[in-house]
């Protein structure tokens, strides 16, 4: 069976773009990806796309061209982009089509996400009494983790400091000014132990990828990349998830653990083969916990890794080289594909000032979101 290659990548800068709809940002990314692969929209045989708050992806055809292409909408919360990519992968693997597009975009209003208890299968009182906030969940999960594994607030600040530093080297990032560790620690507390600089914000942006059968990839690019692993999991019993009025006393693994394991098995490689990773950093604590949940270190090892700068761009194991969610914001439908985009740029050696040194060959992505879903990929050159 043929491998699947990524031969075109496109992005609309993340952040706030007044006057440009989420859908238009998606079209921008799609056109950039087509141009990158030196093909036209009529060459695309299928597409998957989605957003969580900016409309139906398939309406992009009115701007891209009415070619009759099968364009399927994907809606899967924070894993929308990841699910579009996985669907495109499977479509090519199955032999149904040879070349297609995965696209994700979004545009959210400012401030924390609004929550609707009944849409989440919960009772009204849970929202009315002020328990239904994602920020509380993130504060409580890392609070317990710090207690169990000796992670310090200093480590939380180091993650955010790195994110802003990397964002300052990324022309597509939203937050492009470095923020010092001291300012991060002294920033307004949002949900203890997390200050405002440690959180990402809802934002806008779009990413499109063009995928094809590996054996025809050289027609479109001199540097094809290969999607070697991609897997998606929902939450198992005992995982600690957002919007939980109660939790099992016996704790279990997060959905990330299962998704990571499946992705590595599919790719047939080990953690030691990964040269860089983009890990979901909804806030600083998430990046720390996800380093261990994805199997890149043991619980508690992160403190020393961060103090030693291991996850910096020039460190032993660079993480979130484009500034992650903290510097890019989180347009839900686009966020997972942004991670894949960044890995493609890095593996092509085209990341400029934020390029990971020594020609990285294998890169990993991990997206995580409500209500307990996780999707991972492994890409090689």
């Amino acid at each position, binding site marked *: 069976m043929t491998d699947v290659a990524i031969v075109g990548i496109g992005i609309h800068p993340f952040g706030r773009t007044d006057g440009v709809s989420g859908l238009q940002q998606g079209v921008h990314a799609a056109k950039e990806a087509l141009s990158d692969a030196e093909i036209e929209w009529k060459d695309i045989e299928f597409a998957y796309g989605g957003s969580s708050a900016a409309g139906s992806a398939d309406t992009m055809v009115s701007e891209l061209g009415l070619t009759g292409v099968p364009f399927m909408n994907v809606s899967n919360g924070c894993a929308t982009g990841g699910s579009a990519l996985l669907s495109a992968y499977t479509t090519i693997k199955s032999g149904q089509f040879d070349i297609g597009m995965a696209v994700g975009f979004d545009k959210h209003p400012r*401030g*924390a996400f*609004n*929550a*609707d*208890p009944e849409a989440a299968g919960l*009772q*009204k*009182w849970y*929202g*009315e*009494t*002020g*328990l*239904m*906030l994602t*920020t*509380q969940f993130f*504060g*409580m*999960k890392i*609070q*317990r983790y710090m*207690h169990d594994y000796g992670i310090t607030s200093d480590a939380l600040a180091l993650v955010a400091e790195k994110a802003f530093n990397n964002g300052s080297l990324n022309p597509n990032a939203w937050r492009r000014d470095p923020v010092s560790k001291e300012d991060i620690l002294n920033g*307004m*507390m*949002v*949900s*203890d*132990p997390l200050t405002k600089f440690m959180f990402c914000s809802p934002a806008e942006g779009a990413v499109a990828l063009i995928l094809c059968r590996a054996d025809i990839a050289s027609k479109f690019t001199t540097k094809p990349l290969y999607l070697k692993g991609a897997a998606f999991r929902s939450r198992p019993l005992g995982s600690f998830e957002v919007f*939980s*009025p*109660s*939790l*099992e*006393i016996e704790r279990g693994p997060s959905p990330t653990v299962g998704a990571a394991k499946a992705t590595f098995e599919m790719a047939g490689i080990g953690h030691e083969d990964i040269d860089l990773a983009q890990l979901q950093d909804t806030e600083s604590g998430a990046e720390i916990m996800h380093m261990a949940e994805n199997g890149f270190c043991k619980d508690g090892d992160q403190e020393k890794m961060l103090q030693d700068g291991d996850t910096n761009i020039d460190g032993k194991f660079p993480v979130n080289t484009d500034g992650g969610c903290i510097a890019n914001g989180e347009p839900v439908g686009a966020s997972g594909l942004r991670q894949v985009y960044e890995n493609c740029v890095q593996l092509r050696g085209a990341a400029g000032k934020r390029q990971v040194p020594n020609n990285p060959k294998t890169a990993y992505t991990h997206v995580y979101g409500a209500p307990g879903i996780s999707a991972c990929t492994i890409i090689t050159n």
Partner: protein
Amino acid sequence: MSTQKPIADNLFTWPSDSPKLIGSKDTETGRYFFPAKNSNQHEKVELSNKGKLWTWTVQRFLPKTPYIEQVAPEDFKPYAVGYIELPGEIMVESRLVGIDPKELEIGMEMELTIEPFVKNEEGEELLIFAFKPSVNS
């Protein structure tokens, strides 16, 4: 004195000198649930009113809807939130009261309390459950 009532039915026993949260137990698996599930396979149970603090945070900004406290952002008073481990049963998410958040510590003994929250349009005071440090600890 205004009348008081729980913010939702079947959340805690009320009125009561010793209120308890109402959960349910899956009769096949023995698993506990809170709030209680309405199902033939579940029996209603009163949960323990004492437990240990498993984790916590503080809500430091005024939540958006569906939060119902009517207050200007500058008058909003931050509140602590945490999970209480009720031994042998389940961990429940709750507001934490009766303590300065700076004094909160994972593992501390907590007990259930019923607290007034806001008034509804009829002038009734709505009651919520919360946990406070145990007097014995």
